[in-house]
């Protein structure tokens, strides 16, 4: 039963396992599911394991059980925009007609479907706002806007005829928000960095060491001797170097700030320093990069077990990386190209990563990113990227 449904979920990218599909069959056979409503909720609980897919599930469900249209793959973003325009249009046809430079009377003749189609074509012409992507957002003809009595044409509302409430729920698409990726909050960073630690015994000896206690007691012929030991605390040394200069880093300030806040809370032994674009002769301890320079050579004196995390978009003109006088700041030019300094850092600290806030899909388009990736393992500054980076930093 419902094998088509199963495959359409899988085709839509939801990881539905055959086992969970069999579980659903079991539930059906046990007579637990007696209405479409119950089928909607139970099948979702059993088959779909993340709220990120709830929206896709809603769409497939509406399609399978009510014949609502599935969105076209390319059409989704435009759909959202055109729907927004349609909403505006219903509120105030005149202004919008003017804004789009069309005749209001002409638009009034169109049915809502035609209207959406019309807006869509107009938006397609206007390439500027179309970004494209790979997930589904937006349904084609299932917009509920038709409820507004404003418009002379009548709209087919979401293809619902027999109107079961489950389908209504599915068409409402309440979970749309969860499909988008949220900001990287401090909690999420904390989650990802939790495993980045190095446990060392510190503090007072206040923990009972059972093995030693038993050993000592036996040695004392059964006279109990309780042995205490120190508890383990995290003493990981971290150097966090942040690219805080230049407009190219501006869009990423909030996410870097989050990382920085967390690092300051979490790591007892943290050194934060700053650079612009790439590392030249010095790193700076002050964010203004003016007063407290640390020559890169001095870092050789640090514990080589220190974890070095560089954060930056690694995007610059190639000569800034390669040329001996590449720095755009004259006072930082010593004759060693930045790429040599980076190699020196990578050798000094075997556990190092470069976190890049730019999306990894864009990395191949920037030559300096490719170059730096050969020196430092590079990870995207996102939840998944952080986790991979931590795994790399903690590898022996």
């Amino acid at each position, binding site marked *: 039963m419902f094998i088509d449904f199963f495959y359409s979920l899988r085709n839509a990218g939801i990881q539905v396992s055959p086992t969970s599909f069999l579980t659903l069959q079991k539930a059906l056979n046990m007579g637990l599911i007696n209405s479409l409503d119950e089928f909607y909720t139970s099948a979702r609980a059993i088959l779909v394991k993340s709220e990120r897919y709830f929206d896709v599930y809603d769409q497939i469900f509406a399609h399978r059980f009510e014949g609502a249209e599935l969105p076209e793959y390319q059409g989704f973003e435009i759909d959202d925009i055109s729907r927004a325009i349609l909403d505006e249009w219903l509120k105030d046809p005149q202004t919008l007609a003017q804004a789009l430079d069309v005749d209001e009377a002409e638009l009034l003749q169109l049915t809502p479907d035609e209207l959406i189609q019309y807006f869509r074509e107009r938006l397609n012409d206007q390439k500027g706002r179309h970004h494209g992507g790979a997930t589904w957002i937006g349904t084609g003809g299932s917009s509920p806007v038709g409820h507004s009595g404003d418009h002379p044409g009548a709209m087919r509302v979401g293809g619902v005829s027999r109107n079961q409430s489950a389908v209504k729920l599915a068409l409402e698409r309440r979970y749309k928000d969860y499909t988008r990726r949220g900001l990287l909050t401090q909690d*999420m960073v904390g989650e990802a960095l939790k495993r980045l630690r190095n446990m060392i015994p510190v503090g007072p000896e206040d923990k009972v060491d059972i093995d030693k*206690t038993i050993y000592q007691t036996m040695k004392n012929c059964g006279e109990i001797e309780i042995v205490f030991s120190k508890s383990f605390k995290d003493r990981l040394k971290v150097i966090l170097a942040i690219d805080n200069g230049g407009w190219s880093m501006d869009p990423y300030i909030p996410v870097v700030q989050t990382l920085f806040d967390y690092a300051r809370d979490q790591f007892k032994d943290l050194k934060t320093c700053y650079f612009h674009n790439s590392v030249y002769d010095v790193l700076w301890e002050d964010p203004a990069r003016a007063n407290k320079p640390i020559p890169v050579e001095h870092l050789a004196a640090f514990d080589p077990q220190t974890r070095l995390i560089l954060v930056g978009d690694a995007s610059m003109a190639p000569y800034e990386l390669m040329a001996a006088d590449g720095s755009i700041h004259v006072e930082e030019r010593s004759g060693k190209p930045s790429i040599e300094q980076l190699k020196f850092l990578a050798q000094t600290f075997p556990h190092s990563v470069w976190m890049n806030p730019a999306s990894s899909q864009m990395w191949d388009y920037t030559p300096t990113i490719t170059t730096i990736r050969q020196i430092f393992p590079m990870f995207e500054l996102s939840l998944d990227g952080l986790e991979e980076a931590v795994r790399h930093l903690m590898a022996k």
Partner: protein
Amino acid sequence: MEGNILNNKFSGATRYILDNELASIVNVTMALEMPLLLKGEPGTGKTMLAHAIAESLTMPLIVLNVKSSLKLVDALYQYDTLTRLNDSRFGDSHRDVSNIEDYIKMGKIGQSFTSKQRTVLLIDEIDKADTDFQDDMLDVLDQMEFDIIEVDKTMKAVHRPVIIITSNAKKDLSDPFLGRCNFHHIAFPDPKMMRKIIGVHFPDIDSNLMENVVTMFYRVREIDGVEKKPATRELINWIRALKSDPDFNPKALIKGDIPYLGVLFKKSPDYERAVEATRRSHVI
């Protein structure tokens, strides 16, 4: 037993408002004997659900609060070596030193297995533990048995507990883990639901106050850039604060005069942002 579960359907408890969707998920999950994984914003009542199920089905509730340092064996059982050592030295207890079983104490999961009655086992905030813990634990819950190595004995569950697992994490749990659970995401309650929830907590609340409080609550939740949005728990505390203030006038609320913002916003940048935003709306 089976028929008993089916008849014994969960339909809400005295202090918990349940929507139909969640009720049917809970019932299907109980009948399928699978753990139910609940996700959702803090304050949407994930933990409360387990309490409510236990209450309405009159089963004892066993809570396992997961910590990052928790090892699976601690959740199953504990071998109290120190007490045994002590007893062997002084021998003044009723326990039999030569019998290791006397020194095995059941952990939370162990308790839910050995209980004579069917229990509700709440595993709270599973995301705090690492992935290995999660997968290993699911093995135990799948098999409904575990071994006590020290006495070479297998503990089997007398009654399969009703297992509720909660997670706050934005990231997904591992695939094998998810494969063995049913999943539900509790969305933040809409205003209508919220009024019901408030009604349960404050049966004698003035309708005027309720209206204004709910309106304002959803308005302040909309304030941009807030990291921790106030949730149901904050709202209930806030109402409690408002009710205990004799000078408080519900009408002042809609005008944008909001006292005790600190109850709603607990992070200082959030608080400042909220004060700023409400002052602005006040001027308008």
